């Protein structure tokens, strides 16, 4: 033993830039505090966990801001962990949407008899995984971040343990999730075998060949994209989404459809636009097909839904199709228009706007369900008569999702269409036409919600007004403010343009 130690060269611990890790460290500390508070204060301290979780998330925003002010791109561990503008914008998005999730969770968890402390513990752990994902620039970090954000999500999806539908939601999400992770890992192993590296910039340099791609590269990229297509619930890997969204607690549904989906897109953006940048001939057609069928199938099935949560689930599938569209045409964008990297800002812009409007829509669903105890579309009948404020808010969110100016959603769709037209190839034009047709289709089911609220009678004649708890109210206000702000100003596109990678191959 001793002679082994003697002959070993001295171990030099890597230098760690703690400022770069500050958001993760702050969040980790609040995770531990939440767990301890739940352990020490049994019943009396329950209320504190949600406040601590919320404060922890906001506290984690502070180092994100200081890093943004500092402005320097930081690269740690040979480029495996990077803090650049892209990472900071996405981290801010994750933290804010996590905060809204906690706001809408507060009453829901307090009123049902579900466990409290562990709920917030899981939510924060999942968010920690997302923060890591924003900076992860090598295959191992991406894999660990994916599992770190997914495993708590599997548990949260089945949080209503005594409800069979909750169990189903969890099991289905779980089985398909680990299956997709295994497929993704196999793809990663092939890419590692070809390039000899797990660092994305080095993979990007190694794959950037002019000649036809080797089949092993094609299959490697295919498997990795399939793995994340599951995460962003792209058709045909969407089958878990409606059932999981329906069975999970509604705040978790909102969280999965916004933050978890955004994390999947972040991973895709990093992998595709850093690691596989030179191989757009491989992933371009793949994303084209995914985007086209995701939009179309998501919208067509959403038309038939009578349950608002399932409808929003399929609508979020369809929205993912729009977000996938810029990927499809990235390889065709001219260099003088920004080249393939010009496809990143539309996706980021879409993610920001989508987060605001979708969280808002789910917050309204939660408020209404407090009274009607139902998620059926018909229970929204005559909402305007007894809760005009809510009806107006829901109309705002729904029409924003449909993409009607001046609400946020139109800008999101606009930047996607602009990217498609910038590419200008026949394939891109066809995709733009498909997207336009889908925008019109989506109007039907979004408008049907509005019709219920404004024109139909109250189903059971119960016109008692709905009391909105403070936390839900502030969540609604936040979401509505951002939805309107994104619609009338160019804040979202500014952030989209800001979100650029600091290190490219």
């Amino acid at each position, binding site marked *: 033993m001793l002679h082994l130690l003697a*002959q070993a060269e001295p171990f030099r611990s890597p230098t760690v830039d703690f400022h770069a890790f500050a958001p993760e460290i702050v969040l980790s500390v609040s995770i531990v505090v939440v767990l301890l508070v739940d352990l020490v204060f049994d019943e009396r301290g329950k209320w504190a966990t949600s406040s601590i979780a919320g404060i922890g998330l906001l506290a984690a925003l502070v180092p994100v801001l200081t890093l943004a002010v500092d402005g320097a791109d930081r690269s740690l561990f040979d480029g495996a962990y990077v803090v650049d503008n892209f990472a900071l914008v996405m981290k801010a998005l994750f933290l804010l949407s996590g905060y809204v999730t906690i706001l809408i969770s507060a009453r829901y968890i307090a*009123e*049902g*008899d579900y466990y409290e402390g*562990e709920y917030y513990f899981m939510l924060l752990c999942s968010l920690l995984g997302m923060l890591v994902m924003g900076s992860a620039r090598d295959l191992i970090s991406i894999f660990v971040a994916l599992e770190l954000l997914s495993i708590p999500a599997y548990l949260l999806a089945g949080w209503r343990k005594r409800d*069979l539908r909750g169990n189903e939601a969890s099991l289905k999400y779980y089985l398909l999730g680990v299956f997709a992770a295994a497929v993704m890992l196999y793809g990663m192993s092939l890419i590692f075998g070809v390039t000899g590296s797990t660092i994305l910039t080095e993979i990007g340099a190694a794959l950037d060949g002019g000649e036809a791609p080797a089949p092993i590269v094609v299959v490697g990229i295919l498997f990795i994209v399939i793995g994340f297509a599951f995460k962003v619930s792209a058709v045909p890997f969407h089958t878990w989404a409606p059932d999981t969204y329906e069975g999970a607690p509604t705040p978790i549904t909102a969280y999965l459809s916004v933050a978890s989906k955004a994390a999947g897109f972040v991973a895709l953006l990093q992998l595709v636009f850093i690691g596989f940048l030179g191989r757009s001939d491989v992933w371009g057609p793949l994303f084209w097909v995914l985007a086209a069928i995701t939009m179309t199938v998501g919208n067509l099935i959403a038309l038939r839904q009578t349950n608002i949560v399932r409808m929003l689930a399929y609508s979020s599938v369809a929205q993912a199709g729009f977000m996938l569209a810029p990927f499809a045409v990235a390889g065709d964008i001219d260099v003088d228009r920004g080249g393939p990297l010009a496809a990143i800002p539309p996706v980021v812009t879409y993610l920001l706007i989508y987060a605001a409007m979708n969280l808002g829509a789910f917050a309204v*669903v939660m408020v209404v369900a407090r009274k009607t105890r139902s*998620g059926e579309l018909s229970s929204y009948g005559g909402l305007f008569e007894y809760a005009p404020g809510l009806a107006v808010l829901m109309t705002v969110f729904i029409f924003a999702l449909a993409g009607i100016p001046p609400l946020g959603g139109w800008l999101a769709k606009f930047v996607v269409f602009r990217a498609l037209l910038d590419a200008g190839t026949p394939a891109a034009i066809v995709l733009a036409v498909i997207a336009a047709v889908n925008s019109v289709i989506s109007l039907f089911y979004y408008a049907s919600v509005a019709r219920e609220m404004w024109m139909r009678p109250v189903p059971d004649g119960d016109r008692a007004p709905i009391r909105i708890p403070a936390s839900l109210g502030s969540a609604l206000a936040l979401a509505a403010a951002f939805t309107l702000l994104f619609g009338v100003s160019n804040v979202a596109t500014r952030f989209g343009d800001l979100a650029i990678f600091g290190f490219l191959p």
Partner: protein
Amino acid sequence: MVDTIVFVLAALVILSGALGVILARNPVHSALMLIMTLFGVAVVFVAQEAHFLAAVQVIVYAGAIVVLFLFVIMLLGVDQADSIETEPIGGQRPAAGVVALASVGLLVLLAVRAVQVSSGARSTSSALDGEGTNLEKLARVLFTDYLFAFEATSALLVIAVVGAVVLARKPAAEDVQDRKGVGALGRTRSGSGR
């Protein structure tokens, strides 16, 4: 020569074990077949100079994970035969067959061509055949280049422990169904129409 024999035997053990997992009608048999595959994989690891991983494979995978599987099977008493003959969802099985055949062909083709592709790739982190034991080299890379991912997995293990506690714990009032709370917003099962 010895290597070839070891490989052939290990491959036979791995593949027959894997087929056993998916063909056995009894979950207990599947789990035992899984152990067989895992041991075969450990042998492959040894043959590929991954000595530490081979040990971990036996201790963690075959030792802990499969025991956990068996424990759950015994706990639930789901040791009755699982009918593999009945086809639950129409078209599922032929589809699986087609997918499997296609991917076998594709993957084998790829694997054969992989070697030529990889020949030009360069190694970035520490070399595998350098000085020192396998464990030492692994540890050196793990605690320098991949230190952050390593720390992140510690959070993963805490999540697993807490999650297991949450799932296993019986709530104070087992029969209280959503006392005051808002239930799921889904349709009732009977109303789902399927």
